[in-house]
């Protein structure tokens, strides 16, 4: 399959098709098969590999996805990819941003900043074309002998057969059948696997359409999210502008209801509209188009992400409106939640019932994402006449009246607090510290190595399995904690305060950041899941209470 897109900035490699053993009748049963080598599928593969699980990835194309697509990587995704070893190049290459402006015509109606925390590692949002994100994850995955990616391998059908799933795969050298214990469907919005199993997503599809274009353009506009409502560059409609690396700018402009999608996708028409927009905002100089696509907003989801031996993630499981960057980011969060649970099931240290918590937690996350994304959609593509009237009234009032401006806030993707998860341990604390279900913050800590302190970030200390943070007792006693409980790995990190005798613990809480985040008392403990969510927090964190919590996970019913 030849690559028919000549990118202005990215060198798309054509990955060769390698005939698999199944084509010569020598195939063996696979443990975990992942369908789709987009950012979600590749993250799933990398997260499972980090858990020691072998994976086979099937991808119908011979290269990475074309175009910027999911161009915003949120802090939570950066944290996840960082813990998998794939974030450093992403952050180095990407364009971090924290601010944004919205204009009604040429009048400023919103000037917002996302909170920047000095003691956490990553910025709230980094703009980077999806192809780079995929490349960086793939490069990391390629280092592992546990992962195989089969390019030009299109899944045509799947069938649940008791303790396995049968997968029909079409390749340039012919079709074959693959058997796998488990399959993760990361095959996107038009998931063949979803259709093959006769599953339908439920929810709402919106009428509003956006043309999405990547344009190479040299301008010194600073990074940030800029939106124009009803501007001279797109009258009666909306434009969003984002800076990406390589002098590529992402321009999303809304089509009016009376405009024909096919005509508006014609290159001359796209060029004309972008030129009008650039003229209207005073951006001069030469520019050229790299990639164009059409987007329509959806709020749709499967009710259950686990069917037989098939688990759904990302756009194959749910679709959220583009506004606020919750698509790819939600998908990455999905598979980070899933990977450790599936790894435990594959390794036989937890029962398959644990996978019920994947649907429970990630369907909840979908609802949280949709709650915010739908508010953004009412502003960016009002779905009803009433919403359109309200949006226009708010825009008019926002020129002079500050109180309505928060309604125009884009509500960018943020981490999800799994507040109702049945996996949470109630613990014995109600003091306002980090609650079970919240994500452990990736704060700066002082790590003691051979008696000397070194600054690190907390997530760098967490293990791929469970981690318990234990606050040293006032008497200096630190009980021994086992390295496994009920077959589940457990890493212990001792924390000491600045006033304690130095050097006895892993973390010396010099500035009190750990104490502030966790409200840890002497002998208190926080149990952190492999996906960074807090499982439980105790005032008296004995091995017995943590053992009981882990026994619950290892015997989940």
């Amino acid at each position: 399959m030849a690559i028919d897109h000549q990118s202005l900035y990215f060198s798309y490699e054509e990955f060769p098709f390698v005939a698999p053993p199944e084509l010569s009748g020598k195939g063996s049963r696979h443990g975990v098969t992942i369908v789709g080598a987009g950012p979600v599928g590749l993250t799933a593969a990398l997260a499972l590999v980090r858990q020691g699980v072998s994976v086979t990835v099937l991808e119908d194309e011979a290269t990475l996805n074309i175009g910027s697509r999911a161009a915003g990587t949120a802090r939570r995704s950066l944290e996840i990819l960082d813990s998998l070893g794939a974030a450093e190049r992403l952050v180095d290459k990407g364009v971090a941003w924290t601010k944004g402006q919205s204009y009604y015509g040429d009048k400023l109606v919103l000037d917002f900043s996302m909170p920047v925390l000095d003691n956490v590692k990553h910025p709230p949002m980094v703009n980077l074309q999806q192809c780079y994100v995929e490349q960086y994850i793939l490069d990391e995955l390629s280092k592992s002998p546990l992962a195989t990616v089969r390019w030009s391998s299109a899944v045509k059908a799947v069938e649940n057969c008791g303790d396995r799933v049968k997968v029909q795969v079409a390749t340039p050298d012919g079709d074959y059948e693959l058997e796998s214990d488990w399959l993760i469907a990361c095959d996107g919005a038009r998931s063949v696997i979803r259709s093959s199993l006769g599953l339908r997503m439920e929810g709402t599809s919106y009428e509003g359409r956006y043309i999405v274009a990547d344009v190479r353009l040299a301008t010194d506009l600073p990074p940030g999210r800029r939106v124009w409502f009803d501007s001279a560059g797109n009258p009666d409609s909306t434009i969003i502008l984002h800076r990406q690396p390589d002098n590529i700018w992402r321009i999303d402009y809304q089509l009016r209801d009376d405009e024909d999608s096919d005509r508006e996708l014609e290159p001359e028409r796209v060029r004309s509209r972008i030129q009008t927009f650039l003229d209207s905002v005073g951006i001069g100089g030469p520019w050229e188009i790299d990639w164009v696509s059409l987007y329509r907003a959806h709020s749709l989801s499967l009710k259950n992400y686990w069917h037989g031996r098939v688990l759904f993630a990302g756009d194959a499981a749910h679709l959220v409106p583009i506004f606020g960057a919750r698509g790819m980011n939600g998908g990455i969060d999905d598979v980070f939640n899933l990977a450790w649970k599936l790894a435990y099931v594959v390794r036989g240290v937890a029962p398959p019932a644990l996978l019920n918590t994947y649907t429970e937690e990630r369907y909840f996350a979908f609802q949280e994402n949709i709650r915010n994304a739908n508010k953004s959609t009412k502003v960016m593509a009002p779905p009803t006449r009433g919403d359109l009237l309200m949006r226009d009234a708010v825009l008019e009032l926002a020129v002079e009246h500050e109180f309505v401006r928060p309604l125009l806030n884009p509500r960018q993707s943020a981490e999800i607090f799994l507040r109702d998860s049945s996996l949470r341990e109630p613990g014995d604390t109600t003091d306002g510290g980090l609650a079970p279900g919240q994500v452990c913050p990736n704060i700066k800590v002082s790590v003691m190595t051979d008696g000397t302190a070194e600054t690190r970030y907390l997530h760098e200390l967490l293990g791929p399995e469970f981690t318990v943070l234990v606050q040293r007792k006032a008497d200096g006693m630190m009980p021994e904690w086992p390295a496994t409980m009920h077959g589940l790995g457990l890493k212990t990190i001792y924390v000491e305060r600045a006033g304690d005798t130095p050097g006895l613990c892993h973390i010396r809480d010099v500035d009190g950041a750990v104490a502030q985040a966790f409200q840890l008392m002497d002998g208190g403990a926080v149990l952190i899941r492999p996906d960074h969510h807090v499982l439980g927090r105790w005032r008296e964190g004995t091995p017995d209470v943590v053992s009981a919590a882990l026994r619950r996970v290892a015997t989940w019913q």
Partner: protein
Amino acid sequence: MSASALSLDELEALWALLAERITQAETQSEVLLTKLAVLLANEVGDYQRVLDCVNAASKDQRPVKRSV
């Protein structure tokens, strides 16, 4: 008039409620909104404040149109 007397949650709920009622009212939405204005004015109970609101709402902030 810029200070918010409503929380963001309340403003969002108001948006959702009004958008729903306006959409349902179809051609009668102007009457709906006018009745709402009169009812709210009576609730405010201060003619000068109501007058200030009417004047603020009357300001036309729409962008000047230019042809594409």
